[in-house]
């Protein structure tokens, strides 16, 4: 833009903004740091921070801000040109023990032991696809402001080997990589991710969609989910704590990314598998990605009808978010046979119409609404702008459209327990194209 700028950043983001500035070609960007956080502090505390010293440099904050826009540039500050960063194909030969240590120390793993990607193992993994090993699969980034890394079929195979995958799992992992979606978002809010497989490949590779589908009981569910985390770490530089990953508490779901197959065989008549809802044919195989924070098990009364209780259970989901219901086949059949829901779409429609939030609560009680929704209303985006003008005791939809509600069938029918979460659907990709 050509205007000298003094960026002020809170302390926790020091490594993130410095590495980010380097990658964006301004390594000497003149940051001033203040204590973290600013959110929730008083005006007096803000003034105190501004009149104190920068906690990184020890220099007065005010002087640093003024120096940032007035001190002459160095020769390096005005440089142009480019810095290439070639990616090596092989690691220097070493013992297995040393290589395991190297992978761990370089941050190339999820902290658990990996399978070393030897030439023979990668070659075997590549037998799982007809694609050229040098073909570019896609690009991925930790979150939208960060740089996009690209990766080949071979690089995906390397990470698939590390995750413990078999060649028959590889088309699913390639399809997942082709979405360009990281499972490790930079956000301070500690996002989780979810991956759902639909279509014939579920049974071909023996994925679990029944009893214990979300647990550690099935190789395909386990390694495909884990592979997504390793892809994210190594193919997009996601998950570098303090640089590209800022989730305050982290999220345990990131180890496996809630990887399962939808239980299509147990869907009631008229209820479509998720990939068919998204426009794919039933005989196609797909992988679908979601992002959210977590799930909970509603403790519904079994003496009453199921659906009228849904608005009560979903109150924990922020109106900023979407919702995803993981329904056991016991429940889907009850919904169809006893409560008259002949399709997922009918159930989604009911939830959208009946889950509501009071305008006053919507305006006052949700951090994400205040930071990410209301600013859009101030820009005139509807229906947010209209809702912001309503009386505080009026009600608005908790989920602004049907597209913010997902219904998935999973489980073995041993109980009426189920799970509800705040996951949003992101995208689906064909697995067949990567066979």
């Amino acid at each position, binding site marked *: 833009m050509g205007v000298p700028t003094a960026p*002020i950043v809170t302390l926790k983001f020091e490594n993130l903004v410095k590495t980010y500035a380097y990658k964006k070609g301004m390594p000497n960007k003149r940051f001033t740091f203040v204590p973290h956080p600013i959110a929730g502090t008083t005006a007096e505390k803000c003034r105190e921070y501004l009149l104190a010293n920068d906690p990184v440099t020890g220099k007065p904050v005010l002087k640093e801000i003024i120096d940032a826009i007035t001190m002459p540039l160095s020769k390096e500050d005005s440089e142009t040109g480019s810095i290439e960063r070639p990616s090596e194909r092989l690691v220097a030969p070493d013992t297995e023990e040393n290589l395991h240590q190297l992978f761990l120390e370089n941050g190339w793993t999820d902290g658990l032991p990996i399978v070393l990607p030897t030439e023979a193992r990668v070659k075997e993994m590549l037998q799982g696809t007809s694609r050229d090993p040098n073909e570019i699969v896609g690009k991925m980034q930790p979150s939208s402001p960060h740089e996009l890394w690209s990766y080949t079929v071979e690089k995906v195979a390397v990470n698939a080997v590390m995750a413990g995958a078999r060649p028959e799992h590889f088309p699913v992992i390639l399809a997942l990589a082709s979405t360009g979606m990281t499972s490790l978002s930079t956000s301070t809010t500690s996002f989780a991710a979810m991956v759902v497989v639909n279509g014939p490949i579920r049974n071909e590779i023996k994925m679990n969609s029944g009893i214990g589908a979300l647990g550690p009981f099935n190789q395909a569910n386990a390694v495909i989910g884990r592979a997504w985390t390793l892809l994210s770490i190594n193919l997009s530089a996601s998950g570098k704590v303090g640089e590209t990953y800022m989730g305050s508490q982290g999220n345990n779901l990131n180890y496996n990314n809630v990887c399962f197959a939808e239980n299509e065989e147990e869907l009631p008549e008229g209820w479509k598998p998720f990939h068919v809802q998204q426009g794919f044919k039933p005989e196609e195989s797909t992988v679908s990605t979601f992002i959210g924070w977590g799930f909970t098990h509603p403790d519904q009364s079994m003496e009453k009808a199921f659906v009228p209780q849904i608005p009560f259970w979903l109150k924990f989901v922020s109106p900023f978010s979407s919702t995803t219901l993981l329904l056991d086949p016991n429940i889907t059949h009850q919904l169809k046979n006893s409560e008259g829901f002949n399709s997922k779409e009918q159930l989604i429609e009911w939830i959208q119409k009946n889950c509501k939030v009071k305008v006053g609560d919507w305006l006052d009680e949700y951090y994400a609404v205040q930071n990410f929704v209301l600013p859009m209303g101030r820009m005139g985006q509807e229906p947010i702008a209209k809702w912001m003008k309503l009386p505080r005791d009026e009600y608005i939809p908790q989920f602004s459209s049907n597209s913010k509600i997902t219904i998935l069938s999973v489980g073995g029918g041993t109980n009426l327990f189920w799970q509800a979460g705040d996951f949003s659907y992101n995208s689906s990709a064909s697995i067949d194209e990567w066979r």
Partner: protein
Amino acid sequence: MNRHISNIILRILYGMFMVLALTNVSRAVEPDKITVYNPLGQPPAIQKVPMAPRIMSLDGKTVYLVDIGFSATHQLLTELQDILKEKYPKTKWELRTKIGTYFNDDPELWKEIKEKGHAMIMAVGH
């Protein structure tokens, strides 16, 4: 004579056997090295961007303070504006809030700053 030659040959063969045996032992105790792939994807080249020329003096200049929209940022910048106004009275300190969330661009504001401003202070995440 023949017996003597046979002894020499036997000794040479024994020596060769011992050398080979010892070599194998040393191979057995030295851990094997293997070659593995590097798992990292390809980062893009970094394009260096020259920083904008600085202003030599604040006097008579207009400096924009831009709130990117995070909670309490406006409060921080309001305090900063008050301090700067008092400390640098010959400078105009303009406080603005960028439209939308921090994901949204604000070309109108950038245009205004480029036309009317000489420098910018931007804050803050969290």
